[in-house]
């Protein structure tokens, strides 16, 4: 049985790199990513599991990192927004104006990336269900929706 009674050094696999960090057992993954590793792309919005600005991938699944202890991520592959550089969805968000102030964008983008991995050909009706996990208070959702459609086109073209 693994036991963490106090501050501990753990290794996290983040964006394909092993990062050693010192954590309290109570530290959330969001806080460790931002404050210990310096990856500030995942945002603290509500820190209540509602807004989705903190979304990261854990073994490919989008999760809210404000609701995860960092210790739960040991042995799993973590992908943050910083790990999605030059992806089709990033390009599509820029081209379609899928953001305004940008605070929610990293969460939307990470979730949309996972959506496209799981449902590359659309028409499954999954888009709305998946993206209801994220809130945007600026733009409305049209640009974001267009960006996802565009990313699908880019991926199809690339293949």
């Amino acid at each position, binding site marked *: *049985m*693994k*036991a*963490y*009674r*106090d501050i501990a050094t753990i290794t996290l696999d983040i964006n394909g790199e092993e990062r050693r960090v010192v954590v*309290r*057992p*109570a*530290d*959330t993954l969001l*806080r460790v990513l931002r404050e210990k590793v310096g990856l500030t792309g995942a945002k603290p919005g509500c*820190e*209540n*599991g509602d807004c*989705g600005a903190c*979304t990261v991938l*854990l073994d490919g*699944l*989008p*999760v*809210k990192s*404000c*609701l*995860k*202890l960092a*210790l*739960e991520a040991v042995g799993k592959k973590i992908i943050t927004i910083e790990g999605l550089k030059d992806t089709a969805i990033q390009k599509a968000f820029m081209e379609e104006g899928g953001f305004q102030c940008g605070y929610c964008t990293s969460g939307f983008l990470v*979730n949309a990336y996972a959506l496209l991995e799981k449902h590359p050909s659309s028409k499954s009706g999954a888009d709305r*269900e*998946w993206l*209801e*996990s*994220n809130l945007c208070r600026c733009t409305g959702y049209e640009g974001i929706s267009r960006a996802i459609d565009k990313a699908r086109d880019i991926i199809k073209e690339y293949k």
Partner: protein
Amino acid sequence: MIPFDLEYYLPESTEEAAAIFAELSEADKGPLYYGGGTEIVTMCRQQTIKPGALIDLKGIPETTALEVDGDKLIIGANVTLTELNEQDYFPLLAKVARVVADHTVRNSLTLGGNICGKLPYREAILPLLTADADVVLAGREGRRTEPLEDLFDKRLKLEKGEILVQLIVPKEELKRKSWARRREKHGPVDYPLYHMIGVQKKDQLAVAVSGLCAFPFRSAELEKKVNDSALSAQDRVDKAPDLLPGTIRNDEIGSDDYRQALWQRDLAELLKKMGGAE
């Protein structure tokens, strides 16, 4: 951020988990069993709970099982609601799991966490109540399997330190004709005004409801009235509120009158759709 310190344990068996729970309790650490964490992390951040230790049960393989074994479906308590949504064994459970919280929360939220949580809704238990599921529990005294209906009265009545390991559903219950209606005030990602399911079991309707009262329930008295063929469908609907096991919730999401009126309308529809009407 959780503004206090706690310890974290990751046992690999129910025996290890129960032993460390006992040890931590003895040491006044106020341990809590931990599944997906969606509720516990939030409550720790808000400091509405302050456990001294969390015992994460996800390292116990049998709690993540999801398989048919002979004439029963075995569902580990740490199966996530996304996994339940994506399985084909038990369509009603998939349907109910799909509307709890939102997609990325469901990637973490476990069946056991939903059932044992502090929120009044605990919607994932509804299909298990109507399916006459059994629960497998483990603790310091060993292991026991009990009918869910015997242990669920407003909440799952576990002994101190006991672990919800699995839920077992008889195979004949998995694909029964069913009906479900979830009402929300604002949109699908919201707590429900109520969530009602109806399941056709031979010539009887089984009914379970969440959100209407302060706890989810399946009530024998209510079902008796709902299935009383001596009464008209309208009479059954009219008398149903008197047979609820608690008062109708009256809160910021909806008043008791509003909830009752909507619920009676949906109960009438349930009777019509499932053949329980005259």
